[in-house]
Structure formats: C-alpha cells, structure tokens
C-alpha cells in the first residue's frame, strides 16, 4: 500500500457519500490503520452534487489539506458526469475509477474519455434488491474493498455489522440487507 491512500467519493445529497466515507474510514480503523474521513462542506441540498474523502495509512496521518489527486474515485451516481468532472486530479496511469452503473467499464471509458482503470457495479440495483431502497453507498464499499484490497471482505462485513447494530437495533432486516449488498457488490464488480 502507498504511504497514504486517498479516496474521493462523489454523490448527491442524500445518497450517503459522507456516510460511506465515515463507514469506510471506521472499518479501516478497526483493522489497525490510521484514517481520516471528511466531507466537503458547502450549501448542501438533497440531490445536489456532494464530495467526501478518505485518507488511509499504516502510520499516523498529519496532513490536513484537501485531497486533489486521489488514488481512487468512487461515483455513487453516474448522472453526475453531466455536472462535475469526476476524473479531476485522477491519474490516468495509476488512478482507479469505480462507478455505480449498469454499464460496462469499456462503455464508461468511451463515454467519459478516461482510459485508466475503470470498474463498474450496479450498486443501485443491488441496493434496491437487498435493502429495498436506492442507497448505493454500502454496496459501493464492498466493490471498493474488492478493488483496493485495503480490507478483506470479512473485515468490512464485521465492522459494518457492528456499526449498524447500534443504529438499527430495532430493524435487523436493514442490517442483513446492507451486509448482503456489500457481499454482492464485492462479487459483482467488474473491470480491468
């Protein structure tokens, strides 16, 4: 792993881009890594483009500036490409783009003219089928884990179970749905 691994999450207000960064950071911490997770704060509205970030490292993280050249960009909503440059600062040689879409990686590459590493997974479909709502953030964590190998599938499942058990203690079906979503995205993500 790089000294500090950096991730940028793109989503729309309400899709859980912030929560995804927090959950992923927390899951990494539970395996002994040092982490940062922070959203970019602006005038937030439901549906407006939002960004959040992660830094992951095996040693304490001192840097506190924004992330401009992420190693991975995760896109929770592909319609964002109409509004924001999701590939900004992403290195075409080493950078990784992970998109929530039914399209294939090659179709995405041609559409946005980014010819680096592209992975796709239909996280919205998975979320609807497992959780019952289009909340693609947890399945995208599963796909991210598969691609980056920062965590194992077991580690992210265990940590998510722990976290959601507190939040949804009266709704066990939500917990099971999220875990299933992570596992399915882990298995269904495709790309280089």
């Amino acid at each position: 792993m790089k000294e500090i691994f950096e991730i940028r999450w793109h989503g729309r207000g309400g899709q859980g881009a912030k929560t995804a960064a927090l959950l992923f950071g927390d899951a990494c911490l539970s395996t002994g890594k040092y982490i940062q997770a922070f959203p970019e704060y602006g005038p937030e509205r439901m549906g407006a483009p939002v960004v959040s970030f992660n830094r992951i490292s095996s040693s304490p993280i001192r840097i506190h500036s924004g992330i401009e050249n992420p190693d991975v960009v995760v896109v929770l909503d592909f319609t964002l490409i109409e509004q924001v440059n999701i590939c900004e600062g992403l290195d075409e040689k080493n950078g990784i783009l992970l998109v929530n879409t039914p399209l294939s990686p090659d179709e995405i590459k041609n559409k946005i003219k980014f010819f680096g590493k592209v992975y796709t997974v239909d996280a919205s479909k998975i979320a609807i089928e497992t959780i019952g709502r289009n909340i693609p953030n947890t399945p995208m964590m599963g796909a991210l884990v598969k691609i980056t190998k920062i965590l194992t599938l077991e580690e992210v499942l265990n940590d998510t179970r722990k976290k959601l058990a507190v939040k949804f203690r009266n709704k066990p079906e939500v917990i099971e749905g999220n875990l299933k979503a992570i596992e399915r995205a882990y298995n269904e993500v495709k790309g280089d």
Partner: protein
Amino acid sequence: MGIKVAKTANEAFAEGMRQINPDVVAAYPITPATEIVQIFSQFVADGLVKTEFIQVESEHSAMSACIGASAAGARAMTGTSSQGLAFMWEMLYIASGLRLPIIMAVVNRALSSPINIHCDHSDTFGARDSGWIQIYSENVQETYDNLIQGVRIAEHPEVKLPCMIMTDGFILSHCLETLEMLTDQEVQEFIGVPPERENLIKSAIENKPITIGALDLQDYYFERKRQQAEGMKNALKIIPEIGKEFGDKFGRYYGFVEDYKLEDADIGIVVIGSTAGTAKEVVDNLRKKGVKAGLLKIRILRPLPVEDIKNSLKNLKVVGVMDRVEGMNAFCGPLYSEITACLYDLDKKPLLTNFVYGLGGRDVKIEDIETIFNELITVLEKGKKDFTLKYIGVRE
C-alpha cells in the same frame, strides 16, 4: 489504557465533556460547533452525566449562565464558534475578571462579513486579550487531550482563570480521525475533585455571605487587575507541569510549543492549528533535499510563552510567521506582532517575515507551505528581507 476509536474533533470534545462530567453546561448551537452540545445533550438525556444542561437563547446568555454557575462553585462548560464567541465578548472579560475557571470548547471559524462558516483564527485571536487561557490543537487527539488538561489548568488555585480550547472548524471539527481515548476513570482521576475556591454556595453553607462582582473604582480596580495578571503569569508555571503529568500517565507529553526539527535549522515557520501537520510533511521533504528547515507550533497563546518561543527561534536565520488572521492594521498579522515582541530583546535574532493564509477556510496545500519556505530560502540567500507580509493562496 484507552482504546483507539474514530472520532471528529466535535465528537472528541463531546466525549471529553462526558468523561469530565461537569456540573453545568449552558450552550447555544452554532456551526461548526453545534455537534458538540448536540451530542452532549444526548448524553444528558441518556443519563450518562449528572450535568445540569441549560438551553439558552444566545451565546451571551450561555456565558452568563456559566458565570453564574461557576460563581456558585460549579464546574461549568460551554462550546461555541465565530459569531457566537463574538456575541459572548463582554461576558468573556467578566468570567476572567471574576477568576472563574470556566472551560469552553471553541471551533475556530471566520468572522462575518462576508458570512462564512469555515476555518480561520479571527474569532479566538480577537479574544486573546480577554484574560482567558488559550490552547490550540493540531488534530483530533490534541483537541481531546487539551480539553482534559484545560480543566486542571483553569482550576489550579494559583491560576483560577477560564480556559478556551481550540480546534480548526471543519478541518478538524468534522474530520473523522484516529483518537486514543482515555477511560472514564482515567479522566476522572486526572481532573480530580475541583480545588476549593470562594463561591456562593460555600458561603451560604458556612453562613459567611460574600459578594461576587462588586464595584471597584479608582480605589481597587487596578489591584484586582494586577492580581488577575498574576494568575496568568502563574499559568506559565502550571501548564508545563500538567502537560508533563499527563504525559507521564498517558504517554503524550505537552508543553507550550512543539519544536519540530528546529535544533539545527536555518529557516523555520511558526504556525498554529491543523496546518502544523501539513507543514511537518513539507519540513520532512525539505530535509530530504538537505534544506535545514524546521517548524514551531504554538500550542499555548495565552499566556504567551515568551521564553520558549525565544529559545526555539533564537538560532534560526530566517523565520516565517503564519497568521490565519488578517490583522487589519495595514502592517502585519497578530501572531507576527507577538513573535516579534518575543524576539526583540535578543542580541542576535532571525529575520522575521509574515504570511497570512487560509482565511475563510481557504485550503492550505503542501504547495502553499512550499511557497512560504521558498520565500524564506530567498531571504536567507540575500541575507536581508524586502517585505514583511505576503498573502498565500489568495487571488489578486
């Protein structure tokens, strides 16, 4: 020992307050500090603390309620930011003048106008002469550790002054980081029972009524202020003692300042808050290239640790002071003035330059700090400076 958890600085403040378990918290919400009292009020609702939580209609009232509670003998706390702190202004001076050890968590945010919710240090720099002890934090861990030490410092019988503990708005307040928390018992043992001091409840119980906040005109005002100044001076002795005790117990040592690779440095920057971490990366990179660069992080601004600052900087050739505040004096930023005053009496002193940066939350990148060091290298090579103040990262 404690456990490693992921917390934002706001969460760390709230958890620290829960572990301190103060008698009274009075607060009013303001971005980006709202979460502190929001989370804490949940602790109150869940019965995790014995605190009397007072919801007030303004920050002015929040500080007023803390003053009343503290005067009655309570351990009182609050939290605020920016305009909220500005709204407390007159009460800040009353808290310190009455020698009340109130603890305040402050999330640094720019002052209006233009309205802005992001980080700079204008709010607390404005309050630096209000008689409060000021402690600044580089990261979430320091935010938490400083809060816990703040209680001991403020309540020390030789100090008896209110204390504000700072963290950078959004950059830290909303950044989830790795935090090593102490156990509730460790915090309780460290802060202990508040040392005895004159207060209203005690005076009522003992049936020896006292007056707090009486009028002092030409006859006594000056003496009272002189005593208050002595309390601040005593803090210079107490703060490192408590920092060492904290380190001996928990492994993280704290002084007035943090010297980073200054020992043999030719050039160095002086910086406060989260930017110090980013700047340490730059210092390391410069060191790899053979540049003798270093960094001085100011943790305690009030009292001003003159001797430490002098000792840290006296052997440097060029120093850049970073101000996350615009001084509006048509000359320099406030930290530059303070550092200049510290160094003035030295026979041999570094060339001093000033850089104003990061106002209203403007991101401070590695390259911005590199720009500052490049300026310092130029001054070093020329052997003289041809500017006092430069702005970093602004369009003009």
